[in-house]
Every structure is written in structure tokens, then in C-alpha cells.
């Protein structure tokens, strides 16, 4: 049984002028337990809308989203979210206090939650930075706090909304390697949103390619049969890159034409 199923999901936004904008329509995807699913699409195609609905921040206009067979109603700690921007971190809390947040909300004892938070800070490579405030840390480190803050909560699933898009190129590729390592270690199910083909092929076990909006949906799913460390120069990597590129090329063109 899939962990998550999107069943004919549609989301229509209404503008202030009363004009309807169907962001996604007939959206169908199934995510298996333990897999790393990348949702790839041109900007404005509704990727983030899909993530927000699964997170429970927004409700589908029609259709259903099931998790373990039950419809998603509102946010829950089953689905931890890593946001693109660092404004989701709590600036008045130190790194370790940020990571402890979910445990504190559940009244886990002080010593235990500190110990667990430190373990996850170690996992994301932030040991020694735990007493710093987010403002004192770099963009990459802040995203690591976000990842640790979600993982320590032991969610059934991790939702990542272009978490590395705001980072510089070097930090981004480093974070991709780190995330791949963390995923190997935890085997948490991940839904990863990106517009970067390279990132999708580097991380994804399956890549869902989306059409340009409006009325966006999944155009096709590419299964990436690469194991372990992936190298951008491998022939196999390039083959997948090409396959995905060919699938998304027209959509990007449409998206740009639609925007101008």
C-alpha cells in the first residue's frame, strides 16, 4: 500500500477580482513508504501547492489526499515540513532549542529532549553549533537546523519545499550530498520539490515531472535505478538527466511563454 495517494486532486485559487485559477487538476501520484520522491516542474506549475495540500496547510478543491488510507485533514506531526526560507526558524531560540521545539510541545522531559536534539544535530553535521542563534549561522546551516528539527520529531514523512534553492551553488551541492546521506541513514519517506533537474536526478528514487500550469498535473514519472553515491559525470546519471530534460523541456518553454 502506498504511504500517500493523491486521488484526482484539484486546487483552484480565486483571485481578489474573483477570477478562478486552476493551479492543479487531475493530479494523481502515489508515494511508497521509504522512497525519495522528487516532484520536478517549471516555476509556477503548482509544485508548492501540492506540498501545501499534503502538509495540510491548504485543502484540495476537489479530490482526496490519503495518507495510510486516511484522508489528510490539517497539519500534523506525521508530515514534517522543511521550508525554502529560513523565516520558519525561531530566531529567539538557539539551534538546539529550535530542534527541541516539537519535543517540547509534546512535553518530552528536558534531559531526554536535549539528548535527542543533539543526536540529530550531530546527524545533520551541526555538532558544536548548538548554542548559536539562527542569525549567527549561514544559509546552509540554517537549512540543516530545519532538517534536524523535523527529523527529531520522527515524522512518517518529510516534505521539502525547494529547501536548497536559496543557497549558493557550492553549498547546495554539498547539502544534496548530506541529504542523500541522511536519507540513507534514516530511510524516512521524502517528498522533495525542486525545479532543478540535476538536483532531482541526484536525490530522487522516482521523479515526477509536472506540466506547466495552469491545470498542472504529473506528465510522467521517471524511476532512477541508481544506488549509492551518484556522480554527475556517470553515463547513467547523464542518461537520466537527458530523459528528464526531454520530458520537461516543452513545459519550461510553455511556462515561460505563459508568464511573458
Amino acid at each position, binding site marked *: 500500500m502506498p504511504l500517500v495517494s493523491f486521488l484526482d486532486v484539484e486546487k483552484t485559487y480565486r483571485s481578489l477580482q474573483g477570477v478562478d485559477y486552476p493551479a492543479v487538476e487531475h493530479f494523481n501520484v502515489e508515494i511508497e513508504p521509504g522512497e525519495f520522491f522528487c516532484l520536478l516542474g517549471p516555476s509556477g506549475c503548482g509544485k508548492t501547492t501540492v506540498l501545501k495540500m499534503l502538509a495540510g496547510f491548504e485543502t484540495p478543491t476537489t479530490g482526496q489526499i490519503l495518507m495510510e488510507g486516511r484522508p489528510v485533514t490539517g497539519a*500534523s*506531526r506525521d508530515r514534517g515540513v522543511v521550508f525554502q526560507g529560513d523565516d520558519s526558524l525561531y*530566531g*529567539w531560540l538557539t539551534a538546539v532549542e529550535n530542534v527541541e*521545539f516539537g519535543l517540547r510541545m509534546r512535553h518530552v522531559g528536558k534531559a531526554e529532549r536535549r539528548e535527542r536534539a543533539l543526536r540529530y544535530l550531530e546527524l545533520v553535521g551541526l555538532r558544536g553549533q548548538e548554542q548559536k542563534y539562527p542569525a549567527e549561522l549561514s544559509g546552509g546551516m540554517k537549512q540543516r537546523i530545519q532538517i534536524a528539527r523535523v527529523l527529531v*520529531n520522527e*515524522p512518517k514523512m518529510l516534505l521539502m519545499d525547494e529547501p536548497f534553492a536559496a543557497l549558493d551553488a557550492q553549498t547546495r551541492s554539498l547539502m544534496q550530498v548530506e541529504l542523500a546521506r541522511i536519507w540513507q541513514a534514516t530511510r524516512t519517506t521524502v517528498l522533495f520539490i525542486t525545479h532543478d533537474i540535476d538536483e532531482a536526478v541526484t536525490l530522487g528514487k522516482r521523479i515526477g515531472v509536472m506540466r506547466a500550469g495552469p491545470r498542472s498535473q504529473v506528465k510522467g514519472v521517471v524511476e532512477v535505478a541508481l544506488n549509492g553515491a551518484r556522480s554527475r559525470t556517470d553515463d547513467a546519471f547523464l542518461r537520466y538527466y537527458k530523459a528528464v530534460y526531454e520530458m520537461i523541456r516543452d513545459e519550461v518553454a510553455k511556462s515561460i511563454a505563459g508568464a511573458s
Partner: protein
Amino acid sequence: MIRDSDGAARRALSGYGGYVLGFISLFVIWQLASLYLVSSVLFPPPTVVFRKGVLLVRNGVLLEHLSASLQRILAGFIAGSLLGIPIGLAMGSFRPVRRVLEPYTEFLRFIPSVAMITVAVIWFGIGEASKIFLIIYTTIFIVILNTAAGVSAIAPDKIRAAQSLGATRAQIFIHVAMPATVPYILTGMRLAMGNSFTTIVAAELIAANDGLGKMLWDGRLFMLVDEIFVSLVTLGLLGFVVDRMFRWSIYTFAGKYSPAT
């Protein structure tokens, strides 16, 4: 290229050195203006004012007025903030509360506290109660508006993150909305402190037995121009010192909440 000595001078000026220089220049310009520009007993130079000030400190008159004003400001300011913060939090968090209370805040904040002096004196007499009422009045709306604005300025992702970390609505209010709003509350309080000075002087000018405003009034009544200036300088210095203390305590005790970052 900037020479080292230039750099050192610039550093000195951007630190406390600049402050000292600014204050000295203020008094020098005043001294020159009163000696050459407006040479009149109605505009005493700082040296004269300073001597008078020392005299008034020695005989205890200045301190008596100063502490009277300061006590009123502090009492009203603290009470006004303590009332304003929860009201502002509630208005920012719950739309119905905002709808019900907005007519009050939007109507009353345009009636200046100075205009309320007459009413305050009629209601509470010329004692302490009327002054404290006026300081509360002048404090509360700024604190409410800033607090409410702070709540609505919270990044939506902060709330969403808490939701998906399993926090309840009440927990989000206490652990996210309140701390995220602290910088706005402190800014509102700082602005309110400035207004309190304006209000207390106006109130004491009209109806009081002591205070810096009363001192000003007496100075006018008996043509003690020096005393007027002592009172004015004291107000300026007091405001400056209190504001610095406020900023200092924000940075020291609530550095992580400081409005600057």
C-alpha cells in the same frame, strides 16, 4: 587608500567619541548663539543655566520636581504597557476581537492625550491619578497598535512549521506568536516612553503642585528664565538617559528579541 589615522578617527567618531563631540557642539553653538546672536536675558547661555542647575540640585528643588515627573511617567508607562500588550496580542490574533476593539483604538488614538488633560482633571482632580491616567492613555494605544502589527507580521511559515511539528493552537500562541512579537512590543514601548514625556509636561503645566512642567510654569510666572532652561535641559537629558537605558536593557536582557536584528 584610507590612511590608518583616518580610519582611527572614523572609528572613534562612530563610537562614543561621536556622541561626546555631538553634545559638545550642541552646547558650543548654544553658547555662541546666546552671546552673539540673541544677546538677551531671555536666552541665557549654557554656562548660566548650568550654574543655576547646580544651585537647584544643591537645594533639592530640581530633584524633587524630577522625581515627581519620573514617578508619574513610570507608573503610567508600566500600567499602560501591561494593559496594552495583552489587548494588542488579542487584537492581532483574533479577527473578532480586532473588529470589536478597532473602533476604540482607531477613534481614541486621534484624540491627543494633551486634549484629554481637561477631562482628566475634571475626573481625577489635580493629584497623581489624573497624571497617571494621562500617561496610561498616551502609552496604551501605541503599545496596542505595535503589538497587533507585530502579531500580523509573523512569517506564516513560522506558524506552519509549528503546526507540522505538532503544536496546538494555544502552544503556537504562547511559544511562537508571543516571542515573535516581542521586538514590536519593545519598539511600541519605546515610542510610548517618548510620548509620556510630552504628556507629563503638558499635564504638569496645567495642573500640578510639582514636576518639571510645574517648574516651567513657575519660571514663566515669575520670569525665572534660567529655571525654565534648567527644566528644559533636564527634560532633554532625562529623555535621552531613559531611552538609552531602555535600549541597553533590550540588548542586555533580551538581545535575541532586539528590534535591530
